[in-house]
């Protein structure tokens, strides 16, 4: 890889954190040209067996073109299959089991689970697309009565907010209401996603280089 001034970096991320990655990239004034962002559909969440093969396909075709590859996923229910692929292609992923854990940070996540195991977590993204990912994703639009089967073991919705946004808080509250659960709000920011980003071996550009 040598000592290039600016490493070429490929980020392969779950669609559910794409907006957050773009935001962090801008905040940290990173060369847009140095980073290529590829997203996979967020609804792979419900079919995690698709995640590792989809990432492997991209890596197989493109690994050579980049110095660094960051995979914007946790284990996400791949049961170690994703890690096996990443090891093969010398790529790293975000720490933790899933996005709720890397946004909250491992300790805080564990504390909240300890406090109430029956917690259903939502992020900014999940609140924004609650209807598509949760209501339609779980088939509650077609079969509303399934709500009880899915959420019988749950007590509360925990909103792990990235940004402070009263509109989203209202929406999250409404979502909790629809599921018949209590509501708990916690601003956690970007957690380990932000930290991982800071540690990428990329050179920051001037403010002027940030394009809209």
């Amino acid at each position, binding site marked *: 890889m040598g000592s290039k001034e600016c490493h070429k970096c490929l980020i392969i991320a779950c669609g559910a954190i794409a907006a957050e990655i773009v935001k962090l990239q801008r905040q940290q004034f990173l060369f847009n040209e140095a980073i290529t962002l590829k997203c996979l559909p967020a609804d792979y969440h*419900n*079919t*995690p*067996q698709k995640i590792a093969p989809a990432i492997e396909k991209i890596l197989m075709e493109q690994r050579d073109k980049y110095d660094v590859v960051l995979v914007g996923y946790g*284990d996400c*229910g*791949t*049961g*170690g299959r994703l890690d096996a692929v990443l090891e093969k292609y010398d790529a790293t992923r975000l720490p933790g*089991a899933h996005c709720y854990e890397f946004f909250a940070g491992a300790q805080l996540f564990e504390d909240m*689970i300890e406090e109430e*195991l*029956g917690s259903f977590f939502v992020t900014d993204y999940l609140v924004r697309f609650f209807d598509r990912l949760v209501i339609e994703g*779980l*088939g*509650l639009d*077609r*079969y509303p009565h*399934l709500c009880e*089967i*899915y959420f019988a*073991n*749950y007590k509360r919705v925990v909103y792990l907010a990235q940004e402070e946004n009263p509109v989203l808080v209202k929406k999250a509250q409404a979502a909790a209401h629809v599921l018949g659960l209590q509501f708990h709000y916690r601003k956690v920011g970007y957690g380990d996603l932000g930290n991982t980003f800071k540690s990428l071996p990329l050179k920051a550009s001037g403010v002027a280089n940030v394009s809209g």
Partner: protein
Amino acid sequence: MSDDEEEIILRDLNDEELVAQMQDDLYDGLRDEVFEGVEILLERKWDPNAILSDALVEGMRIVGIDFRDGILFVPEVLQCASAMKGGMGLLRPLLAASEHAASTGKYVIGTVKGDIHDIGKNLVGMMLEGAGFEVIDLGINNPVENYLEAIDKHKPDILGMSALLTTTMPYMGVVIEELDKRGILKELPVMVGGAPLNQEFADAINAHTYGRDAAMSAELAKTIIGRNR
């Protein structure tokens, strides 16, 4: 009126057609229709065990295959499960009273500590019941003590554990180790399952059997019992 119309159609079918129709209705998650099919077969003096295995379990086996192949999704599977449950509700008291009441074996099943996913576990429980097992369901979030207590109390032939989170999978290993320490493991086959698991993981934690899906798990459980008797 449509209910009446369908009633007439179901009753018009001969046994073979009716069983095939019931499997279709189960696939489509039509609880009322499946229930009615069971009623009709009972009126035709079918053995409750045959109704269970030929119409319901076989129907659910097909559902399981299409779920595995990505043709059906979780909500549809839940609809099918609900239809099967309806039919089973009608058969359960009859099965208990029939001469074949002797169960295939006792099966204790539960989701491990820290995990509250239970859809897969419930499906496995249902298929085990369909295969004639007496199923003792410990529910969710079970620490090792719960398993030990249930083993002590119910003396099961098989113990089953479910986990859906990467973070809770390793706890199955903890339970198995504890069973081994207490000398229980050599007597009691432990089956494990859950979407993120695979055979390698099951081998690594020293589980007896890995169950990929509900129908297969019920078959494997029967095989284990057969071997141990």
